[in-house]
């Protein structure tokens, strides 16, 4: 079931590798309103970098397509990031999520999903070959003490 968001933003960009840094910076700016720790911000940026890179490398290997990133701030300090593409899709998600498995050649390590899993609390991957892939990641940030009261 979908949780109601307190705030959200949706960004769409072409699958150019120069947008990897943009996606990291954008999620980091938006999440700043949750008053995250530096470690939490770095975790989120790292996971987003992996998800967006997967879309760029694997969804559209020989073309430029659209990548959509949605960031939602949910109750209880939960940040949810969805990265969606309409690319090639993943034929075997279980296999793709295994450490060291990659179809990306020597440039890639096959550790993308492992890192998303270890840096976020929850990772859901949905894919239909030929239709695209959606990655949803959630992380609960440490509760903050309200200042100035």
């Amino acid at each position, binding site marked *: 079931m979908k949780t109601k968001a307190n705030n959200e933003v949706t960004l769409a960009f072409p699958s150019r*590798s*120069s947008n*990897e*840094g943009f996606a*990291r910076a954008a999620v980091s700016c938006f999440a700043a309103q949750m008053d995250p720790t530096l*470690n939490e911000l*770095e*975790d989120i*940026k*790292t996971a987003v*970098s*992996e998800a967006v*890179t997967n879309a*760029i*490398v694997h969804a559209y290997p020989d073309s430029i397509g659209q990548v959509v990133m949605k960031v939602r701030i949910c109750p209880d300090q939960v940040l949810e990031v969805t990265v969606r593409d309409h690319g090639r899709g993943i034929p075997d998600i279980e296999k793709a999520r295994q*450490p060291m498995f990659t179809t990306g050649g*020597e*440039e*890639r*390590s*096959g*550790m*993308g999903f*492992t*890192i998303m899993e*270890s*840096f976020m609390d929850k990772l859901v991957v949905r894919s239909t070959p030929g239709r695209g892939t959606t990655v949803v990641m959630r992380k609960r940030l440490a509760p903050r003490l309200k200042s100035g009261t």
Partner: protein
Amino acid sequence: MEIEATSADRNLLLELKGELDHHGARDALRELELAIDAALPKKLVLDFSGVTFMDSSGIALILRAQQRMGLLDGSLLVRNVPQQARRVLDAAGIGRLVTIR
């Protein structure tokens, strides 16, 4: 991503600077290979102190360096890894395969 190479007596030092993501790793991988081919080092040191961000693309780069040094019967040391990059390496268990200091 910038790489500064210093070599002497078949020791090669590569200092990486900037963001080591998929975008930056493409050129970095090429530069790494060119520098190894030119120096044919016995010992390769990758210094990460200037790396401001790293994702799994950095793992691919380190594993490539390890593989190339294996072919040369040489050694690889990865040093001065900032905290964020270190957590990426730890999550992937790279410390079991490569010497990190």
